[in-house]
């Protein structure tokens, strides 16, 4: 199984440990993981702002980098949602379609493709609030959203509960958006920050020591909010927890 | 071109692509148990209304006190003689001083605790809103299981006016604080009285 690792631009620049943890974690399962060296971004910043024409060249580069892999795996539900649902600024050749279909977010790759049963090397004896990125939750179906009348399931919680010692706390508003929203966070900063403050306050009240998410973008925003409010919450990507980060 | 023709022409020109057939709506299993009277009563209570069981021989026993305290009672039912004759009301506004109105429901709905009236039961439609309190006679045999069953009844297509009441007039437009008697009746009491 040949796996192409996509490390989103903000992970590359701000959270390299998340990329490293993802790579190491995938390698623990004996996979042949490649990191195409010319990769940059999935195009989401442009398409989410409506600027599809401006995203076309970036999307073409993404496809060029990731053609030929059995799976493309990224530690971001948001970027994977972009690739699957919105990478449409370029002609939809069979090559483009194949890349879009084979792109998986890390949690669903572990849960649905590898069907991982255990992470024996991992232990995380902490109280954890799980943060569901909205694109991961409602866009690519990580879990049943609270609005929907269906039996509950959650792939990230299934996976996290296999980690020794972890304790998941319940939030008052479990899948309320944290307010990052990509460019929303800078074009509508007051509402974005208030949503973030409310989110970290909820996590804090629930008694969490750590916030774990499958998306670094939300975590970066929440961390900035928690620090501004002087809350002692710590933020860590699920890839790091699963790879055995000691915290 | 008239507005009518212009609107219809634009709608025809802009008809969405694709087939959009009317779906078959299944008859859903009612969410209420077999005791429709009890289910109706429980739901009506949660909507702010009351069901009063007629104790003994006097069907109006539970509201006797209210009726005795009322100056003006407008009755649209043969079981109780009020002191305001609805049939001779000239203007609906003349009913502004009614303290209690008594009407019979066509049927009740267990799923919601609703009762249906049409202009035939109300005589003057406005009485059900201008009165301070509403007393409703409902035959326990006239309770339907759910809203879906109600909308298969003919009254909606035959009456000039048909209305489902579920509890009294209510609002919570200020800070979510629930108030009964926002514009209409302040209370709604259902008496389970079989049809004569």
């Amino acid at each position, binding site marked *: 199984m040949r796996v192409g690792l996509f490390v989103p631009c903000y992970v590359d620049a701000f959270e390299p440990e998340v990329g490293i943890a993802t790579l190491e974690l995938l390698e623990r399962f004996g996979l042949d993981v490649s990191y195409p060296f010319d990769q940059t971004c999935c195009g989401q910043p442009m398409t989410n702002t409506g600027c599809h024409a*401006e995203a076309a060249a970036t999307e073409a580069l993404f496809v060029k980098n990731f053609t030929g892999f059995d799976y493309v795996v990224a530690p971001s539900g948001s970027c994977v949602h972009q690739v699957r649902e919105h990478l449409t600024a370029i002609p939809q050749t069979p090559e483009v379609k194949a890349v879009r279909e084979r792109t998986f977010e890390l949690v669903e790759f572990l849960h649905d493709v590898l069907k991982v049963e255990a992470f024996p090397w991992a232990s995380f004896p902490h109280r954890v609030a799980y943060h569901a990125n909205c694109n991961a939750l409602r866009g690519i179906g990580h879990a049943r959203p609270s609005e929907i009348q269906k039996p509950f399931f959650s792939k990230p919680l299934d996976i996290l509960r296999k980690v020794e010692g972890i304790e998941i706390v319940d939030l008052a508003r479990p899948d309320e958006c944290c307010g990052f929203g990509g460019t929303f966070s800078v074009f509508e900063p007051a509402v974005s920050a208030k949503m973030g403050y409310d989110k970290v306050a909820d996590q804090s009240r629930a008694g969490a020591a750590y916030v774990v998410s499958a998306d670094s973008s939300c975590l970066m925003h929440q961390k900035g909010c928690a620090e501004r409010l002087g809350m002692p919450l710590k933020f860590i990507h699920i890839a790091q927890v699963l790879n055995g980060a000691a915290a | 071109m008239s507005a009518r023709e212009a609107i219809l022409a634009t709608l025809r020109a802009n008809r969405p692509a694709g087939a959009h057939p009317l779906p078959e709506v299944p008859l859903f299993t009612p969410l209420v148990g077999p005791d429709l009277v009890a289910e109706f009563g429980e739901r009506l209570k949660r909507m702010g209304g009351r069901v009063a069981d007629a104790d003994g021989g006097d069907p109006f026993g539970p509201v006797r006190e209210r009726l005795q305290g009322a100056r003006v009672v407008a009755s649209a039912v043969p079981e109780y003689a009020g002191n305001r004759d609805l049939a001779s009301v000239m203007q609906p506004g003349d009913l502004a001083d009614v303290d209690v109105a008594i009407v019979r429901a066509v049927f009740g709905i267990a799923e919601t605790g609703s009762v249906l009236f049409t202009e035939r039961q109300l005589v003057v439609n406005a009485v059900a*809103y201008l009165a301070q309190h509403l007393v409703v006679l409902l035959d326990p045999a006239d309770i339907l299981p759910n809203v879906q069953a109600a909308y298969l009844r003919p009254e909606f*297509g035959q009456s000039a006016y048909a209305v489902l009441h579920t509890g009294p007039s209510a609002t919570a437009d200020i800070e979510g604080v629930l108030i009964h008697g926002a514009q209409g009746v302040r209370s709604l009491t259902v008496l389970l009285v079989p049809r004569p």
Partner: protein
Amino acid sequence: MSSASDELRPRGAEERLVNPEVAKAGDESERGQDGGRLAHAEGASRPLSAEPAARREREPQPRGAKIRGDRPIDQAEAAERFLAAPLHQKAHDERLWDLRKKRDAAAHGIPEWEELRELASQIKAHTLSNLDTYLEQFEAAAKANGVHVHWAADGAEHNRIVHAIMRDHGARTLIKSKSMLTEECGFRHYMAGVGIEIIETDLGERIQQLDAEEPSHIVVPAVHKTRLDVAEVFARTLGTDPDNDDVHYLAESQRETTRPHILSADAGMTGCNFAVAETGSVVTCTNEGNADLSGNVPKLQIHSIGIEKLIPRIEYLGVFIRLLSRSALGSPITQYTSHFRGPRAGTEMHMVLVDNGRSARLGMEEFWTSLKCIRCAACMNTCPVYRRSGGLSYGATYAGPIGLIIDPTYNKRKYSTLPFSSTMNGSCTNVCPVKINIHEQIFAWRKVLAEEHYIPALKQGMMKAAGAVLARPAAYRAAIGAADSALKVLPRFAVYNPLNTWGKKREMPEAPRETFHAWYKRERLKKTGQDA
């Protein structure tokens, strides 16, 4: 006991009645006969954090977006002012979140909920794609029922038609129930200009009318006001005691002062929740009974109907009525569900079918399904942005998620900014009882607006620059290659903004020692001999 009873059971351990600040001894409306807290109609399921009356200075109510002709609405600016009034913002957020939770409880109590949504969506799609024939059927049925039917191409024509009907009857006063359509038409303003007195009879709408403000929410129009704001408005306009902010006192004062208008009005008007083609009926859903007063007291009765309100047959109300109030307020049905089909003896009934952009919207491939909307406001209640900005920040008749996708159809320039007032989190789509893909339409609107250059040149320029860098690995690496320059490029791909709006309210992320790319090159490539 069946599962449906869960939606009716009092929720939460908190069994206090209203907030102690506004509690009234012996009040029956909040507590049922079994002692459980009642939360039907719009009632909150628990006491909310009201503004304490004891505060030395009242927090002034934040006002809405500044309207400057056709210039794009600055929703972010208005939202920031709303957030600067923390007592208002908190009460607003908690109140609407409570409605969302009540909606969840109601929906989760019905096994067939998702099937009902799908059925409602399909019935609406069918009706809209055959709207011409259903309107003709409706018109024929209404005429056969003795109703006068009128057609209005736009809001101005609607207002002229109603004015003409009033003039023909020598009518000078009109009582009405809540109608978003008449808000669209600017009906009150028009009628004020021609000397006709309009009295809103929905409590929330009346508050907004007296305060000369638009409704901020389509179901609870004054939800952005605290009871202290209402006490101030009523003292100023109705002559109530300015120091009495008891909610019961305020509501009762409104009832007592409105009742004479209801009794003396020359005409009554309602909006329309559903119009049934088969029978020519107009269906309204209210909790106050005010639509029934408007329709049953005056001699002249007018119903304003948006043409998208049609449904083919009465039996489908068995789907829509089950969805509407549960989605809106979490109650199984509104207190009143009223079906107006023909005039009372000796009175006249008029129905005005209004287009006002709807037929044109039907032709918009990506946006026509927004016409399915039944105006329940579930999307507003769940929207995290709406709850923190207030409905008036959108500067449009329709606020919140549904507003973002229909407002630009009225005025593309003025409302060009609104589709960006969203995180596209998708919760709105999931609560929508007719399954409108709201967040996907927000995404689609952004594309339309960018392509037609309705977004600011600065924003589009930044995206062009970002796209150019991100498409060229060398340029991208040059931009973020050196560890210490990561912060400098934050504006380029995380912030896109020379003003650093990120850092004003949040701490900046720390720049790591090296990028993943650099780590990989150092740790992995040297081992394999692969070269960059």
